[in-house]
């Protein structure tokens, strides 16, 4: 992936409270620091209450629309397995999926009104592109807080995106000011990035 004539489209999707907007903020700030034009759309209000939260981030020379058209997502970062299934149709052929290995059933599933898919990751196998599952939530708890999952996922995204580590670290530094929290997030970022790099999905397609 690179940022050129074509605008780079990143979709982050998860559940209210998972830190989707914080993660998209880190990505946007890193892209700004790299000298790109950026537009980032968010979901607020009722939709945030345990519902689906998405954030579109578009990076390019000059970005007009803040919305990514269907089927034009280059990179999908899914914070939950079923959300990866929900948003997969938005990704272009040859695009990349980063999926947090986490299953969260909403009350309507627990009440038996709807069924949670048996194995979302298995049904992603036929995806025409790269798929990277990552145990971000489990790693986050090991690193100190479940809230770090978003930073780990954005670290994994960093392995695919054409932005330098220095810009990512500056973006993280601008978001987290308390030294202890900043250290944890920098550590989480590198955990995600190193893991994704070790899985060698980086720089696939364009």
């Amino acid at each position, binding site marked *: 992936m690179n940022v050129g004539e074509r605008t780079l489209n990143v979709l982050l999707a998860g559940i209210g409270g998972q830190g989707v907007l914080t993660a998209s903020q880190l990505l946007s700030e890193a892209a700004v620091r790299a000298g790109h034009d950026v537009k980032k759309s968010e979901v*607020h*209000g*009722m939709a945030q209450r*345990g519902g689906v939260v998405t954030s579109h981030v578009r990076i390019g020379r000059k970005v007009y629309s803040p919305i990514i058209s*269907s089927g034009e997502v280059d990179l999908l970062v899914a914070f939950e397995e079923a959300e990866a299934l*929900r948003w997969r149709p938005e990704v272009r052929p040859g695009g990349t999926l980063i999926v947090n290995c986490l299953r969260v059933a909403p*009350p309507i599933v*627990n009440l038996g009104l709807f069924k949670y898919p048996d194995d979302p990751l298995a049904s992603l196998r036929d995806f025409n592109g790269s798929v990277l599952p990552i145990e971000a939530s489990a790693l986050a708890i090991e690193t100190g807080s479940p809230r770090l999952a978003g930073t780990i996922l954005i670290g994994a995204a960093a392995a695919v995106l054409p932005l330098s580590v220095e810009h990512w670290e500056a973006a993280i530094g601008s978001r987290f000011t308390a030294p202890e929290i900043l250290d944890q997030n920098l550590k989480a970022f590198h955990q995600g990035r190193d893991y994704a790099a070790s899985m060698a999905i980086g720089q696939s397609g364009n």
Partner: protein
Amino acid sequence: MTRHHGMTAPPTTGQILMSGNEAVARGAWEAGVTVASSYPGTPATEILEALARYPDIYSEWAPNEKVAFEVAMGASLAGARSLVSMKHVGLNVAADPLMTGSYIGVRAGFLVVVSDDVGMGSSQNAQDTRYFARFAKVPLLEPSDSQEAKAFVKEGFRLSEQMDTPVILRLTTRISHVKGLVDLGERPALPFLGFAKDPGKYVMIPGHARKRQPMILQRLTDLAQLAEASPLNPIEWASREIGIIAAGPAYVHAREAFPDASFLKLGFSFPLPERLIREFASQVERLYIVEELEGLVEAEVLAMGIRVDSGGKLPRTGELNPQRVRAALDGGGQRKDEVSSPPPDLEMLPFPRPPTLCAGCPHMGVFYTLGKMKDLIIAGDIGCYTLGVGSPWNATHTCVCMGASLGNALGMEKAYKMANKDQKVMAMIGDSTFLHSGMTGLLDIVYNGGNVTVFILDNRTVGMTGGQDHPGTGVTLQQEATKPVDFVALCKALGVEHVQLVDPYRLPDVYKAVKEALAHPGPSVIVTNRPCVLIEEFHRTQPFEVLDELCNGCGACLKTGCPAIQVTRREVVRLPNGRDKELSYVIIDPMGCNGCDLCVQTCGPKAIVPAGSAARVTSSGPPQS
């Protein structure tokens, strides 16, 4: 989610990422605004939250949008630049002062910022605020990104003072909640003008209003002249095969859908610049008008006798995006292949994930109790408690607009009574919504002897919009301590004799309070007393866990609707009567649980215990159930 956001002032120079809402606040600061008022509402809430961080601006939450409008207008009449902000439906509430405010005009600049929730992400309807500009005969500015949002605020104040009129700045969700790069500027030192008594301008008695009316019409003509030459209405010439007229977010979507087309971008979009539109239309082969929601500019351009090639083609529901624009306009000769297949219904794939109450939400015990009272009609209102409509509670039966539950309930009760039928009716409303526009409904119930029970779910915050303060919380927008409303005393002062305060986490107490209130002939009120779990006043207590060996799979705890309770396995058993019953064995997510203990009260076999106590219980043998 924090309630007390940081009060640090933003940077003074440079270029930073800002949401449209933050950019409007920045623009107001750079325009020398000193007074701003609002009532929270998605997608406009963050405008005032951002303004509150500027210590040299007085910013406040008003009880509702009408009061907010009147406060900001008052400041303008006193000679200070002022701003009011609200969501689209808020302008319905503030329409009264807007319509006469148009006649009165301003002394210092007055900007009315309205954000339309076009896709109904968090609203009960979709409305096109561009109609209100036409209705009130005031100018309309429509930015298409954050940078423009800031610039148009400043232009709006200049225009307001030049033309002696309130100005509407129309945003949509995709302006308010999209972040883009914004250049920061300085704040000027503006002189304070003070009020100047002028009854002919400021006292709208009929005799004065009749003199102002022709002046308003002349102002509209003069505004149209300004729109013709406004730098906010540029023509961007490219290929003349297609020419597109667009404003706001519709412009950026169209710009991307048709990168080679020529554009007339309407930043100052009402009154329409007719000469400019004629000139543009005459020089392009095909003329498209791209606008979200209503085909309003299209109708006016058609009325000018100009041919519009996009007539009736754009969707009139939902938000636009480049793809929808392309699809609607036949691809404009490009990328037709991509628009032919209908998009998958993402909301249903693989299962819907609608908004839920938070774990430990104090509303849950109320819904749990009311959901069991199948004969009761519950008129609902606007707020998190609208979620009571969903499973498993099904405990909200109407939702119209802010404060509507009380009047709706009274009307239902009277209709049943006139038909000689006995029917219990309840109004369910939150603290802030009650103060916004529920109090007058309660007054009607008391005044006209309605046999209605009003349930005020006081969680001490405006919950749905992210936890804002209001007159019941004891804290102002700028974090100063103030006198909180006493709901019980307020209801008694309005004339309600049967008022109960109840802890919503104590299911037997909630049940008893509801039974008592419904049995009481005449108006009754129940007020809850526990804070929203997302604000500072809430203190998370020790989470609970399920002892697997004791869980009998009855699923009673699931009926609370708590999202922290997860089913781990299901089992179908044959009952003695031959019917099958599905059992659901559960665990509690220790990180999600807030320790409210509501589920504990529903658990027959006493399988839910404080987390960590399991080892102790096991070592002394399982308790007998």
